[in-house]
């Protein structure tokens, strides 16, 4: 006999309809559970695959994790098209629909508060990378310095003291790189300050690992912004304008997202490095 749990995707207020033509994780059928005027979008999942122990194993399988995360997000995103939606973290599981209903009953005031905070607002992500090529030393001029970082070909004056020439080159490389990083950090601060001014709330996340971004340039900033929908044009134009102004960095915008990063109040996020107005 199969044991099932109830996987929860999102909580919203309203009629309790589920998105049409969309399946949940593992192709499961979406349903809704209602209580106290709130609606949880759910599906029944086989605990042989989604129970605690199997989940631990499956979450380590990046293919399984990716498929599951995308399915989970697709449901949240579809629900969010129809109104303020509180996204649930991946793998929010209950023993039964009745337990979900009880949870909605217990927590309905908290959910209402979140729904009010996110109503007519969307999340944008802004990531900033050091630009490729920034931090390279300028081609050497004068003083017989070898150009670039060649390995000892035709340096002219540098050939007689290769060690000293090497050290000069390294210092110049390091100082160029430091300068580039310092300038990039200053750019990121300015971008963040200007975007925060256009936002209801802003949160700073850790930069992503290079191996996951697939980029060679380091990511120096990873921020999220909760912006009123009526300011969408203003915000996205500001991002474009800031990107043009700060040529030493590359600015990437993602969104609009359902408000994943803003579902609990900023005070509780203090240790996560949030910035808010």
């Amino acid at each position: 006999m199969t044991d099932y749990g109830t996987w929860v995707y999102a909580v919203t207020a309203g009629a309790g309809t589920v998105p049409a033509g969309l399946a949940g994780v593992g192709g499961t059928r979406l349903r809704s559970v209602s209580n106290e005027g709130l609606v949880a979008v759910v599906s029944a999942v086989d605990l042989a695959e989604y129970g605690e122990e199997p989940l631990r194993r499956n979450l380590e399988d990046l293919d399984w994790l990716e498929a599951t995360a995308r399915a989970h997000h697709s449901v949240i995103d579809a629900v969010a098209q129809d109104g303020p939606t509180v996204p649930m973290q991946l793998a929010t599981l209950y023993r039964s629909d009745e337990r979900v209903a009880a949870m909605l009953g217990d927590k309905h005031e908290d959910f209402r508060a979140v729904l009010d905070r996110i109503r007519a607002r969307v999340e944008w992500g802004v990531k900033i990378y050091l630009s490729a090529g920034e931090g390279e030393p300028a081609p050497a001029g004068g003083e017989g310095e070898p150009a670039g970082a060649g390995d000892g070909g035709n340096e002219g004056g540098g050939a007689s003291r290769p060690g000293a020439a090497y050290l000069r080159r390294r210092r110049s490389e390091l100082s160029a790189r430091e300068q580039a990083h310092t300038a990039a950090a200053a750019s990121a601060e300015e971008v963040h300050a200007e975007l925060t001014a256009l936002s209801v709330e802003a949160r700073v996340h850790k930069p992503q690992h290079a191996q996951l971004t697939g980029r060679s340039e380091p990511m120096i900033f990873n921020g999220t912004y909760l912006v009123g929908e009526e300011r969408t044009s203003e915000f996205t134009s500001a991002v474009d304008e800031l990107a043009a102004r700060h040529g030493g960095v590359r600015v990437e915008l993602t969104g609009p997202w359902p408000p994943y990063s803003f579902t609990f109040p900023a005070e509780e996020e203090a240790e996560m490095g949030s910035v808010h107005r």
Partner: protein
Amino acid sequence: MTPEPGTGPPARAGYSQPATGSPAPQPAASPPGGRAAVRHQRVALVDLLDRVLASGVVVTGDVTLSIAEIDLVTISLRALVSSVREADLLPGLSGEGRDR
């Protein structure tokens, strides 16, 4: 993933694009439905994992309290994410750093 057909006005493309320095065409008050039209662009996995694993309402383990306390699965997903990422970086490394 097959996108839902959109009925809203065309909106700024998908989920991810570099800021080009030129103003983006954008309808004045883009309603939530407007996004449906162009959600064909694939969300980057790393951006997605940042959100579904570390954000949202339920946060278990040693981070902050949640609105909804789950009663079936209590994995510290934040630690698990680290181990998943480490596994991606260093083949053979698994199961370290996880806690309940």
